[in-house]
């Protein structure tokens, strides 16, 4: 089906992009493996949608598609939380640097 082809192509593109980011040291090996795992899982579920249905029944969810959405939502909220934490760290570090530069500039003037 066309949607399967599109999703597999999109996942493949993301895997290749992740690989090049790893090669350029923009991401670390742990991050690459995590994303590789996620996109491979996407490809497997797209090719064998019955796997999602099988897992859904085991977990008490009616449809495979519903299970995929629930898992995706949890993953998104988790990643968003991690992103927020990292952002706050960056904000704190910026303030530390600004304050440090300000105080050192004043010391140098004297």
């Amino acid at each position, binding site marked *: 089906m066309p949607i399967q082809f599109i999703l597999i192509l999109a996942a493949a593109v993301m895997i290749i992009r992740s690989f090049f980011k790893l090669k350029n040291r923009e991401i670390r090996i742990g991050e690459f493996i995590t994303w590789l795992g996620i996109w491979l899982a996407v490809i497997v579920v797209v090719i064998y949608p019955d796997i999602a249905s099988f897992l859904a029944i085991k977990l008490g969810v009616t449809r495979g598609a519903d299970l995929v959405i629930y898992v995706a939502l949890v993953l998104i909220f988790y990643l968003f939380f991690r992103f927020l934490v990292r952002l706050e760290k960056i904000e704190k570090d910026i*303030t530390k640097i*600004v*304050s440090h*530069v*300000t*105080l050192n500039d*004043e010391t140098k003037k004297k």
Partner: protein
Amino acid sequence: MVIIPALNEGRKIGEVVREVAALGYDAAVIDDGSKDDTAAVAKEAGALVLSHVINRGQGAALRTGIGYARRHNYEFAVFFDADGQMSAAEIEKLIDVLKSGAQVALGSRFLGTTEGMPRIKWLTLKLGLIFTRLTTGLKLTDVHNGFQAWRLSALKATNLVQDRQAYASELLQEISRCRLVFQEVPVTIKYTRYSKSKGQSVFNAFNILWDLIIKR
């Protein structure tokens, strides 16, 4: 040392600094990335000026001032607003409270006097009192009053991380966490058209709540 965080207060800062300096206090203006002539005006008025290259927030500016006070071994730090709402003559009252043994002197507009306070501000502050009582257990008559005096030794015990307006709640949380000895002092807060235009929106209370939840 009187620490005065300032952002785009070129119109008022000169008057504020002169008022503070005339009473014999060292005034330190922390210019938090102003786009106007705040730094130049403050310097001309006689303040020590410390300038942030970019805007980081009132909490961050206060911490820079505290850092300077600690480096230069000041005993007391007074927090004072740059918008002319506070009266420099009342600084002495706060310092007297520290000299009598307290570690923190908190200005209270509800024990003192307010002039021209908007009703919505009154309501927001009263709600803030309830929030502070629930989160810190402190029985106060005012919250988010920037007119405070601290012993530097008490500040050393605190862990301040909030950059923006949530710093005011954080200071009270640290008083509670570190079990600091504090006393409220009646002060006068004047709300002028100018200061109301510079003040924070009441909706900022939601941003403060978010910062307190996320950054802790």
